[in-house]
């Protein structure tokens, strides 16, 4: 167990490419922090810098108060779970779990106690003597987590651990990781490009874009008050509708439609509306958003209507029994409008 501190951490590759820039983070002891962002945003690089697999070219990383910039991965008291599991194919599951402990010259009894304990927690006891080749994807994932658990590290690092699993298994393992982390209380950093995974797992999210932090906050904070248009479009599914608008007082005008803002603003701005914050109103209602329907996706619990409003692509989530028409008139729920600066995309207010 340990807190992790990142102080203006940066990574510049030999070719001059800036993968990560000026990251400041305080990760509390026992916290589950998720790094999320599109591919190439530097999230994996950042995680690998914490692990010690990438050198730190700027700033400082401290684990449990000890600066680890020059410390070997094995000495950092961390454990990592890789996307492709990275199990040693020629070793049995038991040997895979024990390998790191053996290298630390741990007593045999202690090793076997820890392996059995991890096997019990992860329910992999039945195939401790099999080779990884004889396991299914989900089982391999468990073994990879077992290898992390047996070390009893102060921090777990997960690098997109669920990406290689099928959809159903992914949801199941997601739940298991969450429960496991809650039970062990080990500080964890988890990298994913899947915003749903990020929302469901995290105590706090870090949204990264282009090597920089866009926003840090609890999943609800990030969802409810996205700090920029980038975060707004990345977090939440279906994605938030963003469209150019003109503000007068505290009202945003999109063509003939009017949407009430929470803060006063003037001039050009970007208006954000989540698809689930819209409701249909009587056709022709004054100031309603006028949606020209292009196609409908049925999700069972709701139906997603896609089309355009004033020429901007626009989607809205309707109840599954909502009437469909070529044209819909929509109104935003009170307080649902997000206002962003038209130029830099930062949140207004």
């Amino acid at each position: 167990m340990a807190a992790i501190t990142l102080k203006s951490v940066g990574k510049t590759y030999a070719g001059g490419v800036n993968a990560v820039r000026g990251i400041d983070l305080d990760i509390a002891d026992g916290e589950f922090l998720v790094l999320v962002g599109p591919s190439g945003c530097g999230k994996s690089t950042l995680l690998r810098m914490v692990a010690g697999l990438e050198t730190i070219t700027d700033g400082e990383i401290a684990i449990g108060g000890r600066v680890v910039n020059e410390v070997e991965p094995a000495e950092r008291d961390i454990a990592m779970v890789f996307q492709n599991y990275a199990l040693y194919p020629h070793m049995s599951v038991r040997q895979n779990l024990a390998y790191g402990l053996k290298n630390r010259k741990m007593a045999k009894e202690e090793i076997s106690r820890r392996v059995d304990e991890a096997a019990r927690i992860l329910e992999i006891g039945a195939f401790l003597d099999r080779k990884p080749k004889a396991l299914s994807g989900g089982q391999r994932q468990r073994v990879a987590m077992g290898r992390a658990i047996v070390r009893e590290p102060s921090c777990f690092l997960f690098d997109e651990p669920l990406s290689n699993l099928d959809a159903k298994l992914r949801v199941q393992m997601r739940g298991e990781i969450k429960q496991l982390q809650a039970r062990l209380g080990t500080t964890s950093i988890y990298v994913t490009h899947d915003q749903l995974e990020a929302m469901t797992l995290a105590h706090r999210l870090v949204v990264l874009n282009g090597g920089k932090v866009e926003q840090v906050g609890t999943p609800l904070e990030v969802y409810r008050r996205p700090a920029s248009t980038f975060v707004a479009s990345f977090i939440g599914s279906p994605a938030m509708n963003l469209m150019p608008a003109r503000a007068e007082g505290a009202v945003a005008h999109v063509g003939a439609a009017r949407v009430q803002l929470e803060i006063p603003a003037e001039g050009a701005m970007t208006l954000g509306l989540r698809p689930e914050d819209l409701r249909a109103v009587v056709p022709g209602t004054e100031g309603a958003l006028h949606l020209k329907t292009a196609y409908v996706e049925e999700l069972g619990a709701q139906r997603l209507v896609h089309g355009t409003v004033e020429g901007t692509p626009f989607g809205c989530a309707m109840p599954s029994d909502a009437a469909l028409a070529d044209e819909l008139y929509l109104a935003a729920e009170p307080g649902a409008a997000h206002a962003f600066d038209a130029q830099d995309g930062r949140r207004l207010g």
Partner: protein
Amino acid sequence: MVEKRPFLNFLAHAVLVLGVLIVAFPIYVAFIASTHGPTDFLSGLIPLTPGDNMVNTYGKMMTDGMASAGMPPLSLQMFNSLIMALTIAIGKIAISIISAYAIVYFRFPFRGLAFWLIFITLMLPVEVRILPTYHVVASLGMLDTYAGLTIPLIASATATFLFRQVFLTIPDELMEAARIDGAGPLKFFWDILLPMSRNNIAALFVILFIYGWNQYLWPLLVTTDPSHYTIVMGIKRMADVVDSQPQWNYIMATAILAMLPPVLVVILMQKLFVKGLIETEK
């Protein structure tokens, strides 16, 4: 492609059987000849049915050799060949797996140059560099020694290249996982890379053992003392007798004995050999 046509079936089998006969017949003739007495060849016809002199012929060759051709006993020559083949095979594997490890896993200056230097030696087989190599070996006083027989043949670009390809298929995450597990470079090599390359090592061993065993030109050059003769060069020596008939039964017995160990190695290691060549999953 899968068609049931009796005639094509027949044709395919006929071609295969013919191929086997073409390869097997000379070996059969050699074996039959080695079972006859020395006088059976004087007629100029080679017999095609087994004779009764087999035990005598092989026994004499193994224990006495053939003094008239300056041949030590075959047992000694086979031992020399075995030493040479094993040293070359094991030496080549050891050196090339280590150099491949360095080239794939370490970032050092001129790494690319080092790889290409190794790679272009593919263009320089023993036969091309034989005179300078002989000169070096002679100057180092290694003529008529096992070291002289084997060391110049040990460097291997082919094997280095093969291991490089094998290592490149092993995902980087495995190395990273090992680093986190506290395995240093040597431990990673010993605990992870070596066991994972086991099948490739076995396949390469088969190829290299046969390569070493079949060396002819090099042993012929560097050995003048019969105690270091190898069996493959010995065969030729026996056929070159002056002022008398070649003793075909003895020559053929030597040929058969020279063929045997490579065949045994292939048969015994066949499974690993095939696995090592076709296996892709790491």
